[in-house]
């Protein structure tokens, strides 16, 4: 767990253990445990049951997958505001009458592949515009966020498309060793993301590009091509999340994934990834997503309103970022 990628290894290794990456992860785990303790005290059996753990994990799965892709983008110094809309577009495109008919004729995975292809394509378009068109990521992905939602509305005619392909439904409804397929998908994406981030050149380049793009270019990294891949990856995770959403709701609609980009960015930032880029953590992101999902769960168990929950979420984000800034200041001052 302590093997986070260090953006500036020299600076971080000199600071104390607690302000290092391991310390940050420990802090997040403590927060998660505290929240769980509150859940057990207030909810008792209703909170501390295997069924409830699965409920929390299922809730976290969709945004969790998005957050893995977002971690790469933010670490590379960018932002992707389009993930929620692209998710919606993927659910719609993967569930049109044409796609479903094709899936019936060939194989249900046609729907899955459609969702993944739509997501990846949207991500690559983002990447092209940002890397080669030199448009600021905020603007480029804002444009995609608006356009993808519009396209989803056009394709669906703003109707809800119900999935009727049995193979697909059987797959997403299934359990494997007592754990729902949706949760497995989240686990697989998280583990693959962790490996890609921490154990490959792709991950190290992502950190380098986010830390200092110019230095990376001088060091021989093809920065533009790398950014293209990073946004493509974010699009791919949006496509995967879209397929998962389709499985969870068995319905494709243009309103799917509304405001998810904000929820996902919040989880990534709370997890300890720096919004200015150059430092990221997949483990932190996963815990960040779990904290928000558990918060929703604890609030629901205690009959508290969504409005109060949103206030709590806001406070958590601010506190997390304040703590991060303290660490960041310390590591740059040493």
């Amino acid at each position: 767990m302590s093997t986070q990628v260090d953006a500036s290894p020299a600076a971080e290794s000199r600071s104390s253990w607690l302000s290092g990456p391991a310390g940050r992860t420990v802090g997040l785990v403590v927060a998660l445990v505290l929240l769980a303790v509150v859940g057990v005290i207030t909810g008792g059996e209703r909170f501390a049951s295997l069924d409830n753990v699965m409920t929390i994990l299922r809730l976290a799965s969709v945004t969790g997958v998005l957050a893995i892709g977002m971690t790469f983008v933010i670490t590379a110094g960018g932002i992707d505001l389009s993930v929620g809309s692209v998710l919606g577009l993927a659910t719609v495109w993967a569930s049109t009458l044409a796609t479903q008919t094709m899936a019936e004729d060939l194989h249900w995975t046609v729907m899955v592949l459609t969702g993944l292809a739509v997501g990846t394509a949207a991500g690559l378009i983002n990447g092209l515009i940002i890397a080669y068109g030199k448009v600021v990521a905020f603007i480029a992905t804002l444009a995609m966020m608006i356009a993808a939602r519009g396209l989803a509305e056009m394709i669906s005619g703003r109707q809800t498309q119900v999935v009727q392909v049995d193979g697909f439904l059987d797959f997403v409804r299934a359990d494997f060793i007592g754990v729902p397929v949706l949760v497995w998908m989240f686990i697989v994406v998280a583990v693959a993301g962790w490996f890609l981030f921490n154990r490959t050149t792709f991950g190290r380049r992502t950190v380098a590009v986010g830390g200092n793009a110019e230095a990376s270019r001088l060091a021989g990294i093809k920065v533009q091509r790398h950014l293209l891949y990073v946004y493509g990856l974010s699009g791919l995770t949006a496509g995967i999340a879209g397929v998962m959403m389709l499985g969870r709701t068995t319905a494709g609609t243009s309103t799917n994934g509304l405001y998810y980009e904000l929820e996902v960015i919040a989880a990534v930032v709370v997890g300890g990834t720096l919004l200015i880029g150059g430092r990221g953590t997949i483990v932190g992101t996963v815990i960040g997503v779990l904290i928000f999902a558990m918060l929703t769960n604890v609030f629901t168990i205690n009959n508290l309103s969504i409005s109060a929950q949103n206030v709590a979420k806001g406070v958590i984000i601010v506190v997390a970022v304040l703590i991060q800034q303290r660490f960041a200041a310390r590591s740059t001052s040493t």
Partner: protein
Amino acid sequence: MSARTELARSSRRRRTVALAAVATTAVLLAAGCTSNEPPEDEGSAAPQVAAEGNDEPGEKVVIGFSAPAADHGWMGAITKSAVDTAEQYSDVELRQAEATNDVNVQISQVEQFINDGVDAIVLLPFDGAALTEVATKAMDAGIPVINVDREFSSPFAARATVLGDNYGMGVSAGTYICEQLGDNPDAVVAEIAGIDSLPLTQDRSKGFKDALSDCGLDVDARVAADFTVQGGETATSNLLQAEPKIDAIWNHDDDQGVGVLAAIENAGRDEFFMVGGAGSLDVMEHIKADDSVLQATVIYPSTQAADGIKLARLVVHDKNMGDLVSAGVPRTTQLYAPVVTADNVDQYMSIGFRS
């Protein structure tokens, strides 16, 4: 009417097959109207039913309730009336999960209700189709689900369904406008719809069109807003720009109607009359005071979820509904969409809601 009183008289008889959906409409509306009164006063119109004691405290019932975020007045009133109704019963414990407009979160709330093993679930889904899967799961777990307002895509997902009559709303509005304009086939009729993607909007528009064509009128101009004040204002100012002379307007939704009225006043137009929709208290006050173009509104009951709570309790207690002879709570209950005018507005003020 006589048929219904006969039903009431012989309400002891049971074991008849329960497929009485249509006939129950008015009965349930009556129940909804009285939802603000204490349980003892309930059913004063049908003393025999009260004697049978549907409101007598029984076994404790834990009801899980989830509805979309209260981002407009009607939705706020839905939740409020459901909570108020649950509080009237000493044997009802309400677990309220106030959902966002995020189906992912709403699904997890229903999953939580299933884990908790509640006795019944009253669910107003953000999207009926998207919540069908998890509602079916609850039914499979032996928890009766009462579906409110937005229908599931499978009949296996709910034990009972309470619906407003969207098509009927359109018909009521169209018929009223016909009565007012009937002798003038060239009259210009405009329509301000809600969110166009929702099936309920399409149903309302279809009913409106059908009723108008009955008297030789048609919809000359149509715009769609989004149930918000802001959206209503924008859509209406565009409409008024495009149509220099209008005779009648039907606005689907009184929440967006606040914006619609603002746009009309800004444009200084008053050559037409307007019919509202849903039945907010503000609109009823305008109708009563006769101080605006608003002449009427069509009720879309904001007491539907309260009906759902009552039905959930009856289902768990295995009792019959109100004046019905047949055994069991009906599968589908569609509520009535009456027209409120200056003549009868006092009768409906009690079920109006604040935008």
